[in-house]
């Protein structure tokens, strides 16, 4: 299969060819016009010369008087310094001038001036010839006059002219090329900018493409938007399915949990109680995972239509911390929030997404802390950014390969003993992209881990 020709070349090639043809036409037209103008000037002078010689011709009895006009000869040479030759014949016999200059043979009744080109002494000449019959003493006598001039001036002018025309032609070509390039650029700009807006979008931004588009691109935009909406539909179905699946799992699990708790309360045997404890713990984990699956679906769903608001970060953080305190209480863990700057930190974000991110950060901290430990939530303002830091005193992530840890279902090697879904960091990362922030998880200096979410302030 042939390589498809780029749009740029499809446009440029005809434009360049047009420019070349136009430049060449310009060059040849200028040359031709100049040539004609110079030729016409020279012919006018030659004509003047032969006619004034003719006018000054007098017959006296048997004699003829020829008067060469001094001023016209001066003029003939003046513009050009071209060489001048002439010849006068009487009754077909050479009378004066240059005998080797050949007279153009005209029929006798020719009265107009005849122009011709000849080669004389190896040089090209332009020649004007005129003839007239005189009636002298009843005898008719024929006077033939020719004046010729070299065309060195014409050649010199044409040389100059060609150079100028060449310069003009080339400049015109250069200009046309520039215009062609600019035109191609401006032609391709809407396409590029469309491509730019589409490619700059977040991974889950499936809003239809809007904004001013040239009418010629509308079909492309329309079909793109159609495609997007179909894709969105498919995605939404998938997410609805996940959400429903999570819900369907959570409900029976809650039932299992409450039934198990009931059995635990009634059970006397320590063996059974231990088993029931394990069941409850696992069910808890499963509920949490199902919750995370829900969260994940929620994030994907919200990314399509973000509801950005100016949020008081301290309020949001406190709210999430309060929500998670009961879960922390189960392990006798205390969440301490430190609010700086009088809480005067605002971010532009979707509240639900921000809460989900914070919840998952705190959830990890609680999950990977030991009982009776403290968790700190701090906020640090750094120029245009705010860093929300969650510090725990748990196992930390020393020596753990963190590369790709934020991918779905990826878990660290430090938590093999704990059940988990591997969705937490994936959710946080996706929210980060949507909110225009960044997230890192690193080992704390002392013990425990340090999760940092950085967001732009407003």
């Amino acid at each position, binding site marked *: 299969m042939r390589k498809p020709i780029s749009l740029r070349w499809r446009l440029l090639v005809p434009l360049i060819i047009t420019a070349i043809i136009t430049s060449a036409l310009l060059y040849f037209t200028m040359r031709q016009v100049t040539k004609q103008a110079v030729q016409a000037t020279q012919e006018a002078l030659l004509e003047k010369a032969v006619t004034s010689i003719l006018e000054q011709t007098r017959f006296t009895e048997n004699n003829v*008087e*020829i*008067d*060469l006009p*001094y*001023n016209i000869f001066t003029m003939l040479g003046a513009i050009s310094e071209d*060489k001048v*030759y002439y010849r006068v014949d009487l009754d077909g016999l050479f009378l004066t001038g240059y005998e080797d200059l050949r007279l153009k043979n005209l029929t006798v009744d020719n009265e107009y001036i005849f122009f011709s080109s000849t080669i004389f*002494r190896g*040089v090209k000449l332009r020649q004007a010839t005129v003839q007239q019959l005189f009636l002298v003493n009843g005898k008719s006598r024929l006077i033939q006059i020719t004046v010729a001039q070299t065309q060195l001036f014409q050649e010199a002018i044409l040389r100059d002219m060609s150079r100028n025309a060449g310069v003009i032609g080339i400049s015109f070509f250069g200009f046309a090329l520039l215009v062609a390039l600019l035109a191609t650029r401006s032609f391709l700009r809407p396409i590029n900018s469309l491509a730019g807006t589409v490619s700059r979008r977040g991974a889950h931004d499936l809003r239809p493409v809007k904004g001013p588009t040239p009418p010629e691109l509308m079909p492309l935009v329309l079909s793109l938007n159609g495609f997007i909406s179909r894709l969105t539909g498919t995605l939404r179905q998938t997410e609805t399915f996940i959400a429903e699946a999570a819900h369907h799992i959570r409900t029976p699990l809650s039932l299992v949990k409450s039934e198990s708790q009931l059995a635990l309360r009634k059970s006397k045997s320590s063996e059974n109680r231990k088993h029931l404890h394990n069941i409850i713990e696992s069910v808890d984990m499963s509920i949490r995972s199902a919750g995370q699956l829900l969260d994940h679906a929620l994030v994907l769903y919200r990314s399509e239509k973000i509801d950005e608001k100016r949020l008081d970060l301290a309020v949001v953080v406190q709210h999430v911390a309060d929500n998670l305190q009961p879960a922390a209480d189960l392990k006798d863990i205390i969440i301490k929030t430190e609010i700086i700057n009088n809480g005067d930190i605002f971010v532009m974000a979707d509240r639900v997404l921000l809460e989900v991110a914070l919840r998952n950060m705190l959830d990890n901290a609680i999950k990977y802390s030991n009982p009776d430990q403290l968790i700190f939530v701090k906020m640090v303002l750094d120029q245009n950014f705010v860093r929300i830091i969650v510090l725990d005193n748990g196992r930390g992530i020393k020596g753990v390969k963190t590369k790709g840890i934020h991918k779905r279902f990826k878990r660290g090697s430090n938590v093999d003993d704990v059940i988990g879904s591997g969705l937490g960091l994936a959710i946080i990362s996706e929210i980060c992209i949507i909110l225009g922030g960044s997230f890192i998880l690193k080992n704390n200096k002392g013990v425990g881990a340090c999760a940092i979410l950085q967001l732009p302030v407003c």
Partner: protein
Amino acid sequence: MRNITITCLLIYVINLLPVAAFEIELEETFGDNDSVSTVQILSSTDSERFRPVINGFINRNPELSVRYVTASTAEIYTAIATESTTFDLVISSAMDLQMKLANDGFTKTVTLAGNENVPNWARWRSEVFGFALEPIVLLVSKQDFLDLKFPKTRRDLLALMRNNPDIFINRIGTYDPKISGAGYLFSTQDSRQSDTFWRLAEVMGRLNTKLYCCTSKMIEAVDSGELALAYNVLGSYANAELPSDSNAQVIALEDYTQILLRTAVVPLASKRPDLGTRFLDYLISVEGQDILDKQAKLPALNNFEISKLANRKPIRLDSGLLVFLDKLKRSAFLREWDAALFQN
């Protein structure tokens, strides 16, 4: 080996020497005998006048010698146009004949190193180059003008001649246009300038004007008092040849003073056009012009006195000059001249 070289050299030299079928006035060689090459110059200017420039050229080019042949302007034209001469440079005061040589294709296009030294009005194409000026003046004998005012214009001159026939009869001199090319050029150009010329010719005819071949004879005659006035004399000759206490007075007429260009061409037939060009380049160089002006007394192209002459009329170096060389035109002019001068 050496003999062969000399023989070859001899043959070469013999070949180089132009066959002098035309009439030579004087032939002179300047510079060392053992010079490498010789510049062959054919000129209408006396070698005596030209000597300083030739010497200056040889000082600059010690390896060259100069063979300087003088002839009349008409002979010069014949030598180049109809004879197989091989001169490297042709110098002539007959602008019209030089112009015709160039127009008819007997001259070479020359590229001069000092090209910009020759203004546009002093050149035709790159073939004819003017290198010196020559005002055409009136020469009067002071002793005859003791009671008369010097004429300022041709009209004055006319009145003067008409009113004092006793002084001027048989004592006016001018060029014979039939035998002098320069004389023919001056009178034809005069005839273009004004009708006064023909009246002047008539009056001169009535006063039985003597016709001369050359300027120097006229200068002599005025200086000696033989002539009361000479019309159309080469000004530089008068200035150069007359002693300061001379009887002859140079007058540049104020209605107009024709200025002639001394020109040089490099003939197409030259065997060493480079040498001719070299000499020409020297003539137009600052040094050459200075020597011409100060020592040879041939006014340089930018001569100050000439540049401030009232009503100077340089004879234009253009194709118009060809017109009076036409044989019909010439015979018509000379017929008219004869009619004016010899009324009998």
